């Protein structure tokens, strides 16, 4: 370890801190507060900086967050490393306390109220979790293998998720699942990511086409069966590199398909289950035999994956109806276009699409948006702030915001990789993952591509907790990154 030269610390810091990220941050925070002013602007209402208005308060939060950010830059990174676990423990404790002491606000118990100030511990728990994860991975000799290490890493992620679910803030809880990217970066098999992706695909396909009947079964299941067959063949050819097995299975499927087609043409009704299930199971039995002659492990994984897919397909419908709560089901149905409840669950997204769509290419101009100002879009200054940008700044503004986030995330990934310490890298990836999730889900729901999950748009959405939470997250990263020379490679 090297000593930090104390004499020239401040100049050194100014030189080594990543100004690019800070500038992106400042642009977004100011743009956010101005958007909040536009979103909550009432005809004949006060100025942008009036503290009784949302925008005035947001400017206050923003000013304070600049202070916080500046202060964080002055704190030595060793403090974070040293206190990562205690901080994590404290936050978990706070989350648990919150469950019991928080008042019920719109069905969730996630706000701690201190007189006029309310704080949402879940926003700050992200930073603590990220630090804890970074600390874990930077522990001497820690490798992401063996069930024990996996269990610890996943446990660190799962613990806040559980607490936040108990606070009934499912949206915020889901954010932590994005840390799977960090695990992936640190060595987890890419297969998990692929499996997660396939799970989403099966889920969407099965539900989206559940109402249409084809071959006597829901069309969604038919498509999912075909996807599974394609997957088996694909995995055999690409993953197992077993050309013979892949070819044989493919020929078998083609033959079965031809027979089914012929029967249908001949007027015989072919039931989907009676056709697909035996065909797929037969092909898997063939593979069990085939793996004796081939790469045993990879073929076995293929077989397991296919079998898991089948099980997953059949449980999706069940899980959807039994596990999710009705309002969550409706949100998903609306997003998938199964239901069009414009008065009820679909109202938000529909009005939000109208707001964004009506902006056109150049937008209606600052304070000229009608959708948001006249309160057609609910939560316009918090979760739906992106609507105001879409309506008033148009396509140009909307894309600009997307690109700002893209630039920041890619920049953070760059910062992560340029740091040679595991602690810095893991922490930076945590920050990037959390931002990815927030941006993808928040903007996705506003433009009608994701289910409505109530999480804010970083730096833009109204709220001190959210803004401060992201400020903590980001500026701790900036400080750690500023010290990268001192903690360089060895």
């Amino acid at each position, binding site marked *: 370890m090297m000593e930090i030269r104390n004499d020239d610390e401040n100049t050194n810091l100014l030189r080594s801190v990543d100004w690019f990220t800070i500038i992106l941050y400042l642009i977004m925070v100011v743009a956010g507060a101005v958007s909040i002013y536009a979103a909550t602007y009432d005809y004949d209402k006060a100025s942008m900086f009036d503290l009784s208005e949302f925008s005035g308060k947001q400017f206050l939060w923003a000013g304070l967050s600049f202070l916080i950010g500046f202060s964080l830059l002055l704190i030595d990174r060793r403090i974070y490393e040293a206190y990562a676990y205690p901080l994590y423990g404290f936050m978990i404790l706070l989350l648990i306390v919150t469950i019991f002491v928080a008042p019920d606000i719109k069905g969730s118990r996630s706000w701690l109220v201190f007189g006029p100030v309310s704080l949402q511990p879940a926003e700050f728990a992200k930073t603590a979790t990220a630090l804890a994860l970074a600390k874990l991975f930077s522990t001497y000799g820690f490798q992401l293998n063996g069930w024990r290490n996996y269990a610890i890493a996943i446990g660190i992620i799962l613990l806040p998720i559980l607490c936040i679910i108990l606070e009934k803030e499912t949206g915020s809880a889901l954010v932590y699942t994005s840390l799977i990217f960090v695990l992936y970066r640190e060595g987890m098999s*890419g297969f998990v990511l692929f499996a997660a992706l396939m799970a989403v695909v099966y889920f969407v396909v099965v539900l989206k086409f559940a109402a249409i009947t084809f071959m006597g079964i829901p069309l969604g299941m038919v498509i999912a069966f075909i996807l599974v067959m394609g997957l088996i063949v694909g995995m055999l050819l690409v993953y197992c590199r077993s050309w013979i097995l892949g070819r044989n299975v493919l020929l078998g499927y083609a033959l079965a398909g031809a027979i089914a087609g012929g029967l249908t043409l001949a007027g015989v009704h072919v039931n989907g289950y009676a056709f697909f299930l035996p065909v797929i199971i037969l092909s898997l039995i063939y593979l069990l035999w085939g793996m004796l002659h081939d790469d045993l492990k990879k073929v076995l994984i293929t077989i397991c994956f296919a079998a898991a897919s089948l099980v997953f397909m059949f449980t999706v419908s069940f899980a959807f109806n039994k596990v999710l709560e009705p309002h969550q089901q409706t949100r998903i149905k609306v997003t998938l276009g199964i239901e069009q409840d414009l008065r009820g669950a679909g109202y938000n997204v529909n009005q939000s699409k109208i707001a964004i*769509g009506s902006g056109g290419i150049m937008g209606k101009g600052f304070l000229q948006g009608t959708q948001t100002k006249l309160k057609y879009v609910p939560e316009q200054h918090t979760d739906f702030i992106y609507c105001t940008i*879409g309506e008033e700044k148009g396509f140009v503004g909307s894309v600009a915001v*997307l690109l700002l986030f893209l630039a920041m995330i*890619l920049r953070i*990934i760059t910062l992560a990789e340029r740091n040679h310490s595991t602690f810095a890298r893991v922490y930076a990836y945590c920050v990037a993952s959390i931002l*990815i999730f927030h941006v993808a889900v928040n903007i996705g729901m506003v433009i009608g591509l994701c289910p409505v999950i109530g999480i804010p748009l970083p730096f833009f959405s109204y709220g001190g907790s959210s803004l401060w939470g992201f400020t903590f997250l980001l500026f701790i990263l900036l400080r750690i990154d500023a010290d990268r020379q001192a903690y360089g490679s060895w």
Partner: protein
Amino acid sequence: MRKDYNLEKRKYVIGGFIVAIVIVYIIRLVQLQVLDNTYKAHADNNAFMEKVIYPSRGLIYDRNGNLVVYNTPEYDLVMIPKDVTPFDTIDFCNTLQISRAEFDHRWEEMKKGRNYSAFTQQVFMNHLTPEDYGRLQEKIFRFPGFYVVQRILRQYNYHVAANVLGDIREVNARDIENDDYYRPGDYTGDLGIEKSYETWLRGIKGKEILIRDATGKIKGRYNEGADDVSPVSGNNLKLSIDIELQAYGEMLMQGKVGAIVCIEPKTGEILALVSSPTYDPSLLMGKERGKNYSDLVNNRLKPLYDRSIMAAYPPGSTFKPTQGLIFLEEGIITTSTVFPCHRGYINAGLRVGCHGHGSPIPLKPALQTSCNAYFCWGFKYMMDKRSKYGSTGKAFEIWKNHMVSMGYGYKLGIDMPGESRGFIPNTAFYDKIYGKGKWVGQTIISDAIGQGEILATPLQIANLSATIANRGYYITPHVVKNIEGVGVLKKNLERHDTDIDKRYYNDIVEGMRMAVLGGTCTRANIPGLDVCGKTGTAQNPHGRDHSVFMGFAPMNDPKIAVCVYVENAGFGAAFGVPIGALMIQRYLRGNSPGLQAQGRAMASRHTISYPKPKKTTSSGNQAANHKKSTDKPVTNNDGNQE
């Protein structure tokens, strides 16, 4: 710690993931903001409420500046279904004083409407009384989505001239399709000049653009009202009708079926256009309109049928002056040509009867005595004059063209809807009936005396009178003298010269003057007014003859030309002449107690026989004091004068 360069490549997967998402979202934004233009309309539909401001409909004055038709406000209850939130229907029904069943019925009816849309203004209930309006206004905030719109109701100072004035009604789907101006719930002219002058009367609608928030609350005016449009009131109309003369005419026609048309010859301005039976124009407005309208439609005597311009009657002997003119113009006769009349036209086994007078007689005495034989002979000679025309067919075409130049056979082009063209046959018509070349003058001899196939409207007969008074021309007859702010319509100034030499008209005028001085219409001989006239007793296969009079006065400076047509009233002298004489006096001399008395006497002479109606509404010059009666809309003008 070791740096695993194999794992570092995974940054591309994570970075690629967010890049992919951003690309997908940008594509989505292109779709929403660039390609799809419907969202703008959606947003405007949400935020802007266009409130229509109705202009005041043009007022109607008579030729002397008396206000005839004006407006009072009425209120419509409208709603925007999208904005309606659950409300207390019982309170609502009580406020409007309607039953729950009626409420449901109206709701259903509204939803069934062809133009129903949950996003636009729908009329829930028309014709709210000021009392209903007052009660509702206090509570309207309890019924979000409902609004009261002020509309106009036509009011009538004189309860006459319904056929001229017409009425307004709510637009139907066809009106809306044909004219962008109209929206459901608007009003449009239905009959009379309300219809023909609709585009001037209706004015230009204004609009106010209001900003509305998601809860339906109005947040103010868009753009400080910069894009609002003020309504432009409709143009006022000045009628050529003398409303008091009209009222007098309607009184005279009480208990009779027929028409009176009075025209100022020099200008073509119609002074009175009476159709009988008629009705009080105020019956066709307001809440009771629908019921009253169907009563009028179902009435046996068809009061909605404007006999003055729509009825095509045989003109009878009033037709004879036209024949004299044609014969003179064609050189068939001179004023000294005489034809025999031995109680009628007797030739080749045909006899057209006539009454006792000297024989043979020349043109003027023939007009004076209304000799059938004279005009039959003249007609026969003209039709059969092969040396001049070559054939009867060709002769008849020339005859027909003369008739058309005198305003017969086609619409005169009065500025009112529904005018009939009457009927003047042509050669092809008779060729079809009798075969080409198989008919001669005698075959169609009744045409000579305004019978046979000839049909004319009272307007055409009055127009003939005006033409003779003008010695050979007429101005398109019209009822609207002037449109305020626009002026006189060009069409109403059009002069039509007949193809008869002007000098022949004086002979006809003299004949008509003789008829008044010592012929068929001596009852029209009013000292000092120099009336010229011609009676008609039009035969009619369905019943008693029609009594007709056509005349003008004064002879040398005609101020009024008149036609009176009374159905099934016998000789022209019986009703036509006295009514015509009274109209002329009323117009030229003004009102007097004597004329009122004579008018009332005429009003009490009825030609209609039918069960006496239970209750009637008064009309005539007492109309200003008229009390509206709704249980019997038709005014058959049965007495009830004082």
